[in-house]
């Protein structure tokens, strides 16, 4: 057990965990706002990855501008998604919406294949590809980029939700829709913005994780499912829970894969999720911090 390998794994775990956290946050925000589980959340990360790759490779747009365009695109995407997949079904009980979001997910997956072809894409890295030497440990710089960017994004999100009026209105809508309406808060607008922001979180995840794996139409599926596991781990509905759940899961996966079995790497997330559902269904941050957005 040499500690430099362990440190490498912690960094890798935190990086993947950050991705899970971002996507999990997307789930949780939508769930808190409209009580719906969006089974296409993984595709919310896959689509922007493709868009970014295309912008950079085919149109040679520099990375910073690509990010801006992708983010704006996903914001609009979120609003359109909400209008098509959620809005017409909002009063129908949860099965129709689940199926509808699954349908959109499949549509996006295959749509991506048609538009961009079946070959996996390599996303150009924003930074140099050589491994960084930190304290004698070699680390993929993209991991550091992921962790840092996620931290910045979460800090911004915290500020937005805690300090701005719009953020408070959104949280109020998620916590008590009727009361929000009584206060004159335009609930429909808040919901649209929630979807848009949730898609932007997906954009961040997609752009950040793209350079590590190849960008393929299937990349969203597993990320989405594992992000869901993270949210359950942290307590479904809890914002800090989603973040911590994601990080925790990322680290567990890496360590489990190394020390227990790499073949069953994908299983860890689900085994943990099932255990949590059985033993402590409210997750680790369930009831106490029932903070919604």
């Amino acid at each position, binding site marked *: 057990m040499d500690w430099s390998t362990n440190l490498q794994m912690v960094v890798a775990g935190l990086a993947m965990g950050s991705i899970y956290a971002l996507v999990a946050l997307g789930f949780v925000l939508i769930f808190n706002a409209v009580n719906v*589980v969006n089974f296409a959340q993984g595709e919310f990360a896959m689509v922007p990855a493709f868009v970014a790759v295309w912008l950079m490779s085919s149109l040679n747009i520099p990375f910073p501008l690509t990010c801006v365009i992708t983010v704006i695109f996903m914001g609009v995407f979120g609003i359109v998604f909400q209008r098509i997949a959620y809005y017409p079904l909002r009063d129908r009980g949860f099965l*129709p919406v689940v199926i*509808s979001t*699954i349908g959109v997910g499949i549509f996006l997956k295959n749509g991506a294949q048609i538009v961009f072809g079946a070959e996996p894409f390599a996303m150009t890295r924003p930074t140099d590809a050589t491994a960084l030497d930190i304290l004698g440990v070699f680390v993929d710089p993209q991991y550091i980029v992921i962790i840092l960017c996620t931290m910045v994004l979460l800090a911004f999100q915290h500020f937005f939700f805690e300090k701005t009026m719009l953020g408070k209105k959104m949280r109020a809508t998620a916590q008590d829709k009727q009361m929000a309406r009584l206060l004159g808060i335009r609930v429909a607008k808040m919901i649209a913005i929630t979807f848009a922001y949730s898609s932007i979180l997906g954009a961040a995840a997609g752009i950040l994780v793209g350079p590590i794996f190849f960008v393929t139409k299937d990349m969203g599926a597993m990320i989405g*499912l594992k992000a869901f596991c993270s949210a359950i781990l942290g307590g479904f509905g809890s914002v800090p829970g989603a973040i911590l759940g994601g990080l925790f899961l990322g680290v567990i996966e890496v360590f489990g894969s190394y020390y227990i079995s790499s073949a069953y790497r994908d299983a860890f997330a689900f085994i943990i*999720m099932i255990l949590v559902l059985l033993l402590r269904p409210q997750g680790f941050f369930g009831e106490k911090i029932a903070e919604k957005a």
Partner: protein
Amino acid sequence: MNTRTKRLVIPVVLVVAVLALPRLVTTNYWMDLINLSISFAVACLGLNIVLGYAGQLSLAQAAFWGVGAYCSAILTTQFGLSPWASMFPAFFVAASFGVLLGIPTLKLSGHYLAMATIGFGIIVQLILVNAIWLTNGSDGITTIPSPWIGSLELKGPGDFFYVAAASLILFTWGAITLKDSRVGRAFMAIRENEMAAGTMGVDTTYYKITAFALSAGYAGFGGWLFAHSCSHYISPDTFSFDQSVILLVMAVLGGNGSAIGSIVGATLLTMLPEMLRFLKDSYMMFYAAGIVVIMIFMPTGIAGLVKTMPVSLRLRAWWNADSTAARQVAAADSTRKSSDAALPATSRVCTGSDQVLLTVQGLAKHFGGLKAVDGVDMKVRRGEIQALIGPNGSGKTTILNMLSGLYIPTAGEITLEGTSISGKKPHMITAHGVARTFQNIRLFGELSVLDNVLIGQHSRSKAGLVASLFRPVSQRAEEAAMRKKAIEMLEFVGLHGKEFSQANSLPYGRQRMLELARALVSDPKLLLLDEPAAGLNAAETEALVELLYHICDRGITILLVEHDMSLVMNVSDHITVLNFGQKIAEGSAEEVEHNQEVIDAYLGTEVGNA
């Protein structure tokens, strides 16, 4: 056309279709597709049982399909078992996996259940990929043998079709038969309103696990069909989460809850993509877009759409015209018309006795720091009508919930005729003779009026899974007796003629009556009524009062929670008044009316000098 000839129509049509089809389909390609559709259809029928009938969202169906396929493949290729023999392990091993999934997920519902099933499915697939010593991993298992009949190997798709078709007919028959049986009704009760199902005597734990097991078994058999037909090759890729999703879409497209719908859905979604292959890669996109469109515009699926078409309504009427149920209803109608119809005005002789039926001692229920019920003692005497009243938040409904088993008391004892029932599960308490109605009507909305009342008799009947499927004489007699009693009860509450209407199509007042009938039909000793007059107009309340008297005449003790004071004062032999979770008064209507504490509790008190 008499009944016997009518009943022969379907078998004859089926036999002809099965014999004719292979001659009509010319290529092996299409025959293979048909066999594949059948394999999916059987799995889909299974999903229909757990999701359509019992309302549990399972996204692991492809995993069970895979378990069945692999089980049979391994047994036939590595152990030389004949495919005919490996059929049974395929079904039962898959069914046990179903139980394995069902048990831990009992307390989950909705998206949590969906996620747990997804996780389960993915884990199963990972095992299939990685347990190479057993499953050959990603290489899959090849040269899976075909079944033989005598010296004929059923290798070609046309030959195998007969096996597939026969199985499909068998399993469909099973699914349809199940629906109209005690077990099927229990499933649907759970789907419609799990809480009410429990208080009607349905052991929800047992039935949920059974649903999972049955549906997994179906899928397992579908897997058997898959393994031994088509390409005689299986690999783990096929049994993925995506495949479970496809099965779900097939079930929903066909119509959730409809067995035939599942077959139609499975066939369409197997054939259509093949026929759309000319669209090359984009056919999945159209298919996916189609799903969303269907959800928005056609949520009840194809079956739902067809059901409302006049042609099918007439067909249905013709087919059901002389079913046993219809005949019993008609018979009841004619006897009623020829005898004295109206219920005699009751003399309301029953005034209660001194025999105590129910004793409540020191009952308490705390929710965290909130003391909803804080040490209540009560006695309910046999044959009386007692009312439990009190201002908002005084704990009345909480007490009813503890009496019916929906809440476990934090402290205290509840004794019914000497037996303790505190903390017991709802269906056990029903078996002891307690029935209840709910404040906001928990009927099994999509089911017929008759079915609602039949479910009410669940605790007084016995037919299990096997009896429900194979319908021996004892089961048929039991069903007929239950129906007779149900029809009588419906007449008693004034709902005759409405037996086959859908429960939630009834006007509000009638729905209340139906709920009462459903509770009464279990022959309770004690009837708990939660705000039975809520939402009733003056005339309906009058009718309710008369009905309560008739119920009392039958020897049933009534405990009711009610806000309509006129009703309470009119009807009750004994009144218990609660406030802030404690009993503040009890006695006859006169006594309570003039009790200053009660008046203060309701009108409020002047606090301090305001």
